């Protein structure tokens, strides 16, 4: 569904990604792992068109999208849920959700999808008339995921949905992400620092390090791989030995 070939990009003159190759198959969950500042969010920004791609190509559904504008990529069915839990705090929960459906004109289907989102996250329905700035961190995360779904995408990219949330809340959100995959047949690329949780959820994983894909493999193999922990923690070989 999504294919990334040799993608390089960065900020100004500073190159962050040095040739990324990745594949995300339809109706599965793929985890993208890596430590702080390794370029995970940068890759998502490049995929969704917020950052220009310097070289390489990105194919979505077989179509090249690396030269398209972000709003065109959303309309093609690929949606990013950003890291910062950035809802529009000055708008109500429902306005936020309706913004997610901005690119759509099928009113009846939008209403149906709104009900689906409320079914996944009932607390959003309860608080739909409130300003989203008043929600708790976990609720905002639910809101931005729900807002992504409102675009009726074929694939969503979630950037660190577990960041800065209590373990129980994380568990709840991950359960809903799994439900979304199953019930909507959604393709999901999830960026995480919470390696264990992400690998439990995903079927395939990539570890990014220094702007390159460092390790990749089946999720169940990776869970037991110390190399993964090492790359993830960014420690030295000696430390990795100690872990063992």
């Amino acid at each position, binding site marked *: 569904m999504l294919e990334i070939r040799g993608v390089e990009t960065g900020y100004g003159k500073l190159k962050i990604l040095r040739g990324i190759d990745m594949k995300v198959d339809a109706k599965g969950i793929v985890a993208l792992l890596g430590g702080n500042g390794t370029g995970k969010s940068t890759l998502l920004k490049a995929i969704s068109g917020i950052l220009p791609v310097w070289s390489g190509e990105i194919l979505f559904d077989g179509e090249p999208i690396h030269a398209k*504008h972000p709003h065109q990529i959303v309309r093609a069915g690929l949606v990013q849920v950003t890291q910062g839990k950035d809802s529009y705090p000055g708008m109500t929960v429902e306005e936020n959700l309706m913004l997610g459906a901005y690119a759509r004109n099928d009113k009846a289907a939008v209403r149906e999808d709104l009900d689906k989102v409320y079914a996944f996250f009932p607390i959003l329905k309860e608080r739909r008339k409130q300003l989203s700035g008043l929600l708790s961190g976990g609720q905002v995360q639910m809101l931005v995921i729900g807002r992504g779904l409102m675009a009726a995408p074929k694939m969503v990219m979630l950037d660190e949905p577990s960041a800065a949330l209590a373990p129980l809340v994380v568990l709840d959100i991950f359960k809903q992400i799994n439900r979304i995959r199953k019930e909507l047949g959604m393709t999901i690329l999830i960026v995480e620092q919470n390696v264990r949780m992400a690998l439990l959820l995903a079927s395939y994983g990539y570890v990014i390090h220094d702007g390159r894909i460092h390790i990749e493999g089946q999720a169940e193999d990776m869970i037991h791989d110390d190399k993964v922990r090492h790359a993830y923690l960014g420690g030295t070989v000696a430390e990795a030995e100690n872990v063992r």
Partner: protein
Amino acid sequence: MLMDFIVVGLSIGLVYGLVALGISLIFSGLDIVHFAHGEFFMFGAFFGLVLYGDFGISYPITLFLAMIITGIMGVVIERVFYRRLTSQGGGYTVAGMGMIICGFGMAIILQNVAFLIWGAEGHAMGVQFGMPIAVGDITLPRSYLWILIVSVGLMAALHVLLKHTKTGLAIRAVAADKDIAYLMGINVPLMISLIFGLACGLAAVGGVLIGPINYVQVEMGYLMLIKAFAAAVVGGFGSLPGAILGGLLVGVFETLCAAYISGSHKDIYAFLLLIFVLMVRPTGLMGHLAKVKA
């Protein structure tokens, strides 16, 4: 007498409000302070002069056409001259600072263009509105009635657009966060054009409304800019209700002071009010409602 002055002040204040609304719209939408905005007010008035005076088009249609033409002119100028800078970021960035100079430059260019076309002298718009109407013991010239109705109508329309339509939701989203708006599938560059065009159109309407009361002349733009600026800051920079409130306050305060203190220094009163409000409330009256800018 007092009531007459207040009504006059409110009407002038509504025009300040229209121009200030545009300045605030551009500030929240594009993250820039647009120093050439007064010139769009001036061009709007001149377009009104041509449409009404030379082409003999009726006043309401003139208002409408001047708004559209000036709006399109704004869209083109923003796209051709400003976009390169604004797409690099506004606010306190280097591009944002460059935009301030760019705005001043554009103001001077537009003034000179207007000067070359229409000369330096004042032109009377000569709209025949008919007899003033009396409401209670206030006699109200119809030109002021037009200002009241058209401005309030436009402000209400803007409110409906922003709060109750999908396009308005998108405009608010673009104003609050462009990257996220992009990820909602909103065509952000197009929305920015729309915001800018809208703001210039509002200023133009202000120009056509003021035209019949004052002379239409090249300097009217920068005088309006400083008043509208004062209005925007008094109300709280970036706040749309604040822009209207600030406009009304500046209009009434200035008219009353001119009537009861001295008419020869009319233009300083706006700034006395500005300084006073900023001393009491540094964010402006409704500044707490405006969004925080980086």
